[in-house]
């Protein structure tokens, strides 16, 4: 699927984060992603936070422009792509930074979710009130403005029947040993080009994240030597995560 939609709302979520709503809903499994196209600017991967929205953290030129779109502007979407989460029972959803937004649709699709969320400061704990209405929410902020002062990993382990982790790779790598190998899922990010499994650019220890992932079971992630360590740059050169 490739389509161009119209932006209908730009909702500021935090200092760095905006949710961009468009005029049609897309059916996807939580965890699948979209390639977002801004004509003549570029195309980059984002996860739906609503059936008709992506939540974007300003990280560079593309995300700056994306987060600044206004109603009436056009936004191209290709997808949904990749493998999402399987249905999860009583999951603990562990999110860091904008990764929290990527857990929203999973939270809505899950039975009795609980949340373990981390960020630099309170402002970064996205959808805090909404998640509190769904289940217990544990928070860690680096500046201590909300919840535990420190890192989200310090809140682990928590009791749950399954786990989904989405956040910066080093945070996820730190979570890996603290969570069971079964019924735990990680959202892996790599630089994407084709996003359909052809170019190999998004390799993580040989798995193509765009097609085998981005959601991987912990048992697979545990065998990925490169996870948390290295990734291929745009040109294919190894760089540290």
């Amino acid at each position: 699927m490739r389509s161009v939609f119209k932006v209908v709302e730009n909702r500021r979520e935090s200092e760095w984060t905006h949710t961009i709503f468009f005029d049609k809903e897309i059916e996807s499994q939580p965890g699948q992603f979209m390639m977002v196209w801004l004509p003549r600017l570029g195309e980059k991967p984002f996860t739906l936070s609503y059936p008709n929205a992506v939540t974007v953290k300003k990280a560079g030129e593309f995300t700056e422009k994306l987060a600044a779109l206004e109603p009436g502007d056009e936004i191209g979407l290709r997808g949904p792509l990749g493998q999402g989460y399987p249905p999860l029972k009583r999951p603990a959803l562990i999110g860091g930074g904008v990764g929290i937004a990527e857990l929203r649709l999973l939270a809505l699709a899950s039975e009795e979710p609980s949340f373990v969320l981390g960020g630099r400061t309170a402002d970064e704990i996205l959808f805090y009130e909404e998640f509190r209405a769904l289940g217990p929410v544990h928070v860690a902020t680096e500046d201590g403005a909300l919840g535990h002062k420190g890192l989200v990993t310090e809140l682990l382990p928590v009791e749950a029947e399954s786990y989904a982790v989405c956040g910066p790779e080093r945070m996820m790598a730190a979570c890996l040993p603290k969570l069971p190998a079964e019924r735990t899922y990680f959202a892996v990010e790599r630089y994407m080009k084709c996003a359909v499994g052809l170019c190999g650019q998004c390799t993580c220890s040989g798995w193509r994240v765009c097609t085998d992932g981005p959601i991987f079971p912990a048992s697979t992630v545990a065998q990925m030597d490169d996870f948390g360590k290295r990734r291929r740059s745009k040109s294919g050169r190894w760089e540290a995560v």
Partner: protein
Amino acid sequence: MIPLPEIDPPLINASGILSYPEVFAAFESAGACLGGYVTKSVGPREKPGNENPVVVYPPEGAVLNSLALPTQSAEDWERDLEEIRLRKAKLIVSVYGGDAPEFAEVTGRMSRFGDAIEVNLGCPNKEPGEQTIMESIGQNPALSAEVIERVRDETDKPVIAKLSPNSDYLAVADSCLEAGADALGCGNTLGPGLAVDIRSRAAILAGTTGGISGPALKPINLRMTYEAYSRFRCPIVAYGGIETWEDAVEYILAGAGVLGVGTAFMRKSTHEAAALTRDIWEGIQEYLDGEPMSALIGAAHRAAEGGGHA
């Protein structure tokens, strides 16, 4: 002529698909029936390629890509190939450069790893400001021959000249074989082609146009294979829209001895892709029904020459 290594089964990935050795290794672990791994085309210097979007797939079996040969440096490729070992697939290093000396330089570095060297003469994509290899070299028989000659000097491994369908490819093939190529690659992507987004009125690909792969390419590269076999009776590695065992058999009957699969892996998980390669190989074997594959290579020509109705 140096014979191609025995590639068993005679299925490989197409260059630029899967690209990196660890991805191929994952395919092998998943039980893929691929007897050879072709690297992404290795260039002399690091180069990011075009910005996204680099692929668009208008309906109807055509994929347009405008990757424009992103590559880490040849040095980094050496490190990769030292580190990541394949189980048992043969290794074919695909090389490119801006001119004959660059092709030679890369071949010199990479030759020790490869069981064969594939020379990319036909990429129709470019970063802004560049010329495509297809335009600067692959459409010109003399310049192509110069590249093959220089590559030949740098390696004692068999050399595959991978042609562009958008060229007078029989003339190019002729001079490449003359210059020391041992086999032909039939061939690279077609075009390039264009796709326009009618809402924003913009070309979709950042590189504006992109080489066409997938089923839409099959009749073109199948004809290239047929004509090249008919003229040269040399070993042929075929690429272009191979998705099923029937596609593979068409290419074999036309003259190919090794089949490359590329776009067919689109949107397939590693396990699905591995299963696809098994299906293709099993289909070929059932079709062979005990005959050796060599009996089948180019059989469409023998049938045509035999004349009369079957």
